[in-house]
């Protein structure tokens, strides 16, 4: 079963276009505007989540929680030495006392800088590959020389954020699917309304020997063009909006929100949405028209 959109100029005149209000074009513009926004949000959070995963994967913090200064320093030195010898470790950095005091300032104020305060020593560790096995091996090696050590994966700290982003991505995908379903429903209704308003023309065409497919093709073409023109309009506005929001996010200077960027592939996917929706509308129109025509002689 072929879907031919190209019709002759004579065929195009068969449906009285002057009667249409072209409301479909505007409805489709709004549908595509919302769909592209939802898709952009999904793609943006997917990109941010992926960036976050990439940044956090294989990053560890080793804390030496030892109240006795000398023992803490000895275990810290031993842990640093052990970590530097491991081939899986690409970078080791001990957070100095001043940085720790700065980190504690929101909770302890100036007291965080008190040299008598027993603050755990902290070591930032980057792994080449942050698999569970590597993390376990590194943890074992550290605990062997520093029993007071605690090893924390950054992934574990950020998992609620990552989960939230994944949820937003799936929610956006769900919205796109819902919008596609709503578009199909609108097309079905529009096709049925079109059949009703062109009933006389269709009856004459049938009596002259038109096939259902010939009649359906007239509606398919019209609905596909309405969807495409409206879709391009809505997509253009939505892409402009997304670009504007992107600029605003970039200006915030936030690492996390800065990850909400769209790649050129993402922009291409957004640009393909009106074409996809036009094809979807074409099939929906064909389905509706052939179904309705099959009930008349």
């Amino acid at each position, binding site marked *: 079963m072929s879907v031919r959109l190209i019709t*002759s100029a004579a065929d195009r005149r068969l449906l009285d276009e002057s009667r249409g209000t072209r409301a479909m074009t505007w409805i489709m513009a709004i549908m595509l505007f919302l769909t592209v926004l939802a898709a952009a949000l999904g793609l943006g959070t997917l990109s941010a989540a992926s960036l976050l995963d990439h940044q956090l994967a294989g990053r560890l913090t080793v804390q030496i929680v030892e109240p006795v200064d000398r023992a803490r320093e000895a275990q810290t030195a031993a842990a640093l030495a052990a970590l530097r010898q491991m081939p899986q470790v690409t970078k080791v950095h001990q957070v100095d006392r001043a940085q720790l005091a700065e980190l504690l300032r929101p909770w302890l104020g100036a007291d965080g800088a008190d040299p008598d305060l027993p603050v755990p020593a902290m070591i930032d560790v980057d792994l080449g590959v942050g698999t569970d096995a590597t993390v376990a091996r590194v943890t074992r090696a550290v605990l062997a020389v520093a029993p007071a050590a605690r090893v924390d994966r950054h992934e574990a700290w950020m998992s609620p954020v990552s989960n939230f982003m994944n949820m937003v991505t799936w929610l956006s995908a769900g919205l796109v699917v819902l919008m596609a379903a709503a578009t199909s429903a609108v097309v079905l209704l529009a096709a049925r309304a079109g059949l009703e308003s062109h009933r006389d023309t269709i009856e004459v065409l049938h009596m002259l020997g038109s096939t259902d497919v010939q009649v359906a093709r007239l509606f398919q073409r019209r609905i596909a063009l309405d969807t495409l023109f409206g879709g391009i309009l809505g997509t253009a506005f939505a892409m402009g909006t997304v670009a504007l929001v992107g600029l605003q996010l970039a200006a915030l200077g936030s690492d996390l929100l800065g990850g909400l960027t769209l790649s050129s592939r993402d922009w291409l996917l957004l640009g393909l949405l009106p074409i996809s929706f036009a094809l979807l509308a074409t099939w929906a129109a064909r389905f509706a028209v052939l179904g309705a025509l099959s009930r008349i002689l």
Partner: protein
Amino acid sequence: MANIVQFENVGLRYGSGQETLSDVSFTLSTGSFYFLTGASGAGKTSLLKLLYLSQRPSRGLIRLFGEDAVTLPRKRLPGFRRRIGVVFQDFRLLPHLSAYDNIALPLRVSGVPESDVEAPVREMLAWVGLSDRVEAKPPTLSGGEQQRVAIARAVIGRPEILVADEPTGNVDPDMAERLLHLFDSLNRLGTTVVVATHDFHLLGRIPNAHMMRLDKGRLLDPTGSLRFPPVKPGQESDA
């Protein structure tokens, strides 16, 4: 002569009302000319609808072009309909199309290339005297002009059967005669013509035309052998 149409005990009922047509049986010979007469409400239009496959009968058998038209699958209807030209009583012209485009419709529906459409359409326009109204749209045409466009549309595809419902109802006597002459010419080319009419003046204009008369949904002379005016025995000839 082979029968192109055969009705056997055909009945037609709309909804749950009385039968509009009852026990209608007749045959139409290929290449013959038939007048269908009867008072208003006698069932002429209903019978024609069965002929041009706009309705299926409630009962009985209809054979068209040698095939059972009652059980004909829906997807085969377009092929059959393209072999039948119809002049509707209410013309059924598409109001947003020009006279030219209305007449060209059957050719375009049949997939005739656009390059082969213009010549026959202009010929038909000339034949029905509307060469100067090529681009006119039906709402701007008089009743008679619309009727002529409808007739041109019905005959342009050289149908095997031409069914016309009151085709001269809106034209003056001269034009009625011209249109009847057009039907006669088409008939001479082999088309079976069925004309439903009230106009008794027309009945004598076509030599050898058969007459079928409906009364309250029943065919009074099912053989279709009656002629108007009646001919004396021995003068009949096969149409």
